[in-house]
């Protein structure tokens, strides 16, 4: 992917400073009839012209590669920029704007070798998030800082996916079957659990339980067991993006957290070859049909990245009616909704009425409201208690129709995953 070049050559403010100083010296030399200011003016006048003539003529081509590391809240980004000769790597100026919601933990660190400019960035993510980092803007600036050009950068955008680590275990959940046609064949796939299927070379991330130690000892290398896994069903992830009474900024943050959870869940289920569908309900329904595989993961990421808080809240019934056009009834549905007002609570009964059996994962707004409060501690404690009671009452009302999980610690979803993995509890709604 290549960033388009907008303006090939620009004079920097320092050039105008030098030219202004040279013109002033020129005027003074003429007025005083002395050649010294004129001779001092010469280098100042010629330097801005010489700057673009020495070095790359035209936009320099730069190859950019990046790596994202770090766990949970920390993001460590390393970029390498390799310009074509005769551009010096140290003359490149890079701009990487953190996506909204990401904080800079430390200033960027630059280091240059003969061929490559390395940029190390340390960011901090307060909430779970999914974001796509575009190819950075790179400018070439001459060593004197007089002219600059946009560089032609080739590279790929970097994906940033941060969600609670427990979600990785969510994929092994036994899901309800959605298609019960006579003569239907059971789809079999290779997975981490199920019936023994065979032995393969162990991967780095294979858990110790999956390693076949006896076979490894015989072969002299690590071997792991593979299991034939029955695909248990399909899962639908439904995001409620309607605006609430909490206000646009809180709505946007809660939606960002929901997006990250949806992506984490989709990733876990897709890894187990389950078919996953995603529906976004704002003013209307945006539905991604059920599918599986890597392409589906990219489709899901794209649809989640394009999701924002809807301008208008549509009636809850519309969601139930519209969903039936895209998905079969009886499907396991995970609804991600803040449950912040009566209208969002209405969504669950409408879904049940249309034959969906949702499990509600509700990111709580209480931590966000507490962080932005400017009350004195006594008042804040009182407001916190009342808000908590109100929140409990909202979640309890949702429980009448479907199990609802109040998600207050955004970096932990162990309770939710355990709940999903125990089908008896799920069926009873406990």
């Amino acid at each position, binding site marked *: 992917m290549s960033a388009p070049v907008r303006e090939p050559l620009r004079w920097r403010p320092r050039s105008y400073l030098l030219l202004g100083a040279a013109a002033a010296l*020129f005027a003074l030399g003429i007025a005083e009839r002395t050649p010294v200011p004129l001779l001092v003016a010469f280098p100042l006048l010629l330097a801005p012209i010489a700057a673009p003539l020495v070095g790359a003529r035209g936009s320099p081509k730069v190859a950019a590669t990046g790596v994202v590391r770090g766990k949970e809240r920390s993001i460590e980004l390393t970029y390498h920029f390799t310009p074509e000769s005769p551009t010096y790597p140290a003359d490149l100026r890079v701009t990487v704007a953190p996506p909204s919601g990401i904080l*800079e933990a430390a200033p960027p*660190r630059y280091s240059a070798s003969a061929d490559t400019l390395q940029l190390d960035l340390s960011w901090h993510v307060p909430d779970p998030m999914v974001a796509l980092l575009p190819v950075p803007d790179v400018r070439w600036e001459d060593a004197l800082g007089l002219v600059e050009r946009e560089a032609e950068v080739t590279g790929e955008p970097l994906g940033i996916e941060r969600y609670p680590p427990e979600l990785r275990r969510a994929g092994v959940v036994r899901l309800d079957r959605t298609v019960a046609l006579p003569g239907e064949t059971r789809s079999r796939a290779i997975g981490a659990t199920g019936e023994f299927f065979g032995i393969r070379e162990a991967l780095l991330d294979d858990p110790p339980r999956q390693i076949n130690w006896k076979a490894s000892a015989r072969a002299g290398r690590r071997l792991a067991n593979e299991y034939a896994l029955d695909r248990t069903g399909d899962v639908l992830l439904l995001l409620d993006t309607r605006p609430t009474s909490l206000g646009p900024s809180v709505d946007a943050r809660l939606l960002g957290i929901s997006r990250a959870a949806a992506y984490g869940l989709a990733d876990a289920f897709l890894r187990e070859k389950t078919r996953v569908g995603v529906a976004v309900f704002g003013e209307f329904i945006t539905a991604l049909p059920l599918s599986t595989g890597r392409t589906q993961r990219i489709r899901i990421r794209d649809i989640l990245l394009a999701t924002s808080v809807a301008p208008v809240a549509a009636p809850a019934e519309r969601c139930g009616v519209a969903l039936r056009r895209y998905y079969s009834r009886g499907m396991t549905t995970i609804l991600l909704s803040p449950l912040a007002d009566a209208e969002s609570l209405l969504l669950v009964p409408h879904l049940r009425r249309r034959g969906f059996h949702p499990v509600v994962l509700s990111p709580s707004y209480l931590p966000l409201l507490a962080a932005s409060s400017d009350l004195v501690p006594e008042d804040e404690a009182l407001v916190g208690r009342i808000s908590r009671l109100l929140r409990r009452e909202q979640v309890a009302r949702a429980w009448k129709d479907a199990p609802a999980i109040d998600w207050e610690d955004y970096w932990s979803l162990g309770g939710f995953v355990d709940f999903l993995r125990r089908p008896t509890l799920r069926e009873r709604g406990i």
Partner: protein
Amino acid sequence: MSAPEVGSRFGRAVGPTFALLAAGLLGFALLGTLPLFEGLLVAVAGLGFAAALRQSGWRGLHAYAPVGPLVSLGILAVASTPSAIPALYGGATALAFLLWLSEDPDRLAGGPGRAIGRLLLPGIGLALAWTSSFLLPGGDATVGIAAALLGGVLVLVALFLRAPEILERDATATS
């Protein structure tokens, strides 16, 4: 995006090129017609201004650091005696000033090494102007020749500022 971490700010603000610039300005002050104390005061004020701004924690101020030495250079140039040696010394000080610009504390180290090639053209221009002004016979004509050369360069600058694409490489038919 915040300022890059590029090593000690003090070391970069008053590095070797700063010493070169200081030598140029102080020497130029000694060659001028200003009283010694006043001349040195002008030079030191410009240098102090530049060093203080480059060491400042506020990055927005760094861009204004070159103004101090430029003003000092201008005052000393007007006050210098109109003869060959001060003129040559003034031009060399202007080159030293350009070299000092390349040692920017907000950029990676090694700027002066990369900037040397870019000083070739200003250096040649200075040498031509100086030889034509002082080594050719003539009285007031020396100022005239220098002014004519300078005027020509000004026209060239205006042309380039208006159409910077002149400096771009032509696209080949196969590219």
